């Protein structure tokens, strides 16, 4: 299977003197959902930001759809099919829902209507919120706008940074279910999550990151079964459950 995203030995950080990623490799193949797990401060967000061209990369390389994209400017990457939903501040609070969605496809106006239809299909609630300022929405609605906006550019790869953070378990579940639908529609997905169990449940494979290095990787089932992952990210309950 071809790799949509191929990250090789990437070293990156916000300042030249302090590297946050200290040689991270990761692969996301076409049609997969891949989850990156790790404790707070592990560098998960930094990894996604480095792929999106928002953090300077000092070594290693990143390939997207078989093209070297290391150090490429963010807006160009987005126009080539890479979409990213940040962990926080992922909607324009002062702009309406409608405008937030439109922004996602502004560089490709021809497809705007069709994609708006697809996004509203996925998140029907957004239709009646169209004219509200995104800042007035609840956390769950905002997350829908953020994901919807990211899909407006018809991405080949969708990267989401903690899409379920701050949502009720029920809403979080809805988000993951929708991610599956998005994947089934042909979008490859890379997720960073704290909510390991729910994320792995919809994922094909996963990576565990700690202190800027990859700790382990494997299929979602392997990670769910692994005692180390269980202890660190799934809580003690999972161990008891296995016993």
């Amino acid at each position, binding site marked *: 299977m071809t790799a949509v995203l191929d990250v090789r030995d990437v070293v990156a950080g916000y300042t030249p003197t302090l590297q946050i990623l200290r040689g991270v490799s990761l692969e996301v193949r076409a049609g997969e959902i891949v989850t990156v797990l790790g404790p707070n401060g592990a560098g998960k967000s930094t990894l996604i930001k480095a792929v*999106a061209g*928002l953090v300077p990369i000092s070594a290693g390389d990143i390939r997207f759809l078989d093209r070297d994209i290391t150090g490429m*400017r*963010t*807006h160009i990457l*987005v*126009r080539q099919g890479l*979409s*990213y939903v*940040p962990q926080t*501040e*992922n*909607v*324009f*609070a*002062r*702009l309406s829902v409608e*405008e937030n969605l*439109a*922004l*996602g496809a*502004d*560089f490709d*106006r021809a497809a705007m209507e069709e994609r708006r239809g697809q996004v509203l299909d996925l998140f029907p609630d957004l239709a009646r919120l169209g004219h509200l300022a995104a800042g007035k929405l609840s956390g769950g609605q905002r997350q829908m706008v953020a994901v919807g*906006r990211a899909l407006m*550019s018809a991405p080949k790869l969708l990267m989401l940074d903690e899409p379920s953070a701050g949502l009720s378990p029920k809403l979080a579940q809805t988000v993951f279910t929708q991610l599956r639908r998005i994947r089934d529609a042909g979008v490859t997905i890379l997720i960073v999550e704290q909510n390991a169990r729910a994320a792995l449940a919809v994922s094909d494979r996963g990576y565990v990151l700690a202190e800027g290095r990859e700790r382990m990787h494997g299929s979602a089932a392997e990670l769910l079964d692994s005692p180390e992952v269980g202890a660190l990210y799934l809580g003690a309950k999972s161990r008891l459950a296995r016993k």
Partner: protein
Amino acid sequence: MMQYVADGIVFAAIISLGAIGLSMIYNILRFANFAQGEIVAAGAYFALAFVALLGAGVGAMGPVAFGWPLLVSMGFAMAATSTMVLLVDWLLFRQLRDKNASRIALIMAAFGVSLMGRNIVTLAAGGDPINYTFYIPRSIELLPGLRLVPDDLAIIAIAALSVLALHLFLSRTTMGRWMRATAENPTLARINGIDTRVVIRWTWIIGASLATIAGTLQGHIVELRPEMGFSLLLPMFAALILGGVGNVYGTVLGAIVVGVSQSLAVAIGLSAYREAVAFMLMLAILLVRPQGLLGERE
């Protein structure tokens, strides 16, 4: 009394056109551009150069003591000022941005540009006041008891049309949406495929164009001096802060408050203190609404 209010609104029209550039640069580039006054002055002097080049005077439109020659010159001056400002950005501010310079470094750089700008204008055009034409304001009676100067009305109309055009640009065009998006969150803008460098260029062009209109109109009703823009800087900042940083329309409202309160101060015989009166009012409003008239609370 009417005349004082009219004077105030004319002044407001001019400072709001200048202050919009200040506001847009502040919101998109995140620094207070202390060289905005010099952009206003440069616009006025460029218009003077084009008036001289065209050699057709300033024209007239009925009772209004300026016409197409001044307006055409102003159009050319908008292009010239924009080019100049883009050049300064490319040579200076862009470099500072690329090096992640602090806000204070950008402000100091703007101070430097401001000083240099005034010196260059003085070198090029001399330090003495100049006029586009010999202009004596003549009021006409519009209604019984209501006398207004036609040029004042023309200036208010030009400013209102400019603000309307800006509003349509910001609310209806893709670039306008990109500007609002970049003002709110530049990183998220890039994630939406927006080339923020292009947005920055448009910000300078719009700010410089409106400043050129302000400078030309100010030059017409008062005079051209190298310090003409610098002396508008304080009222422009007052308008910006009063209206609420982050809201272009607030800037216009702030300008009206500053302009009218200054000329009412003159009306009640406090002409020597007119700026102080305007600032007292600004402080009083800010004590009640720290975020400005139309600003949102952070």
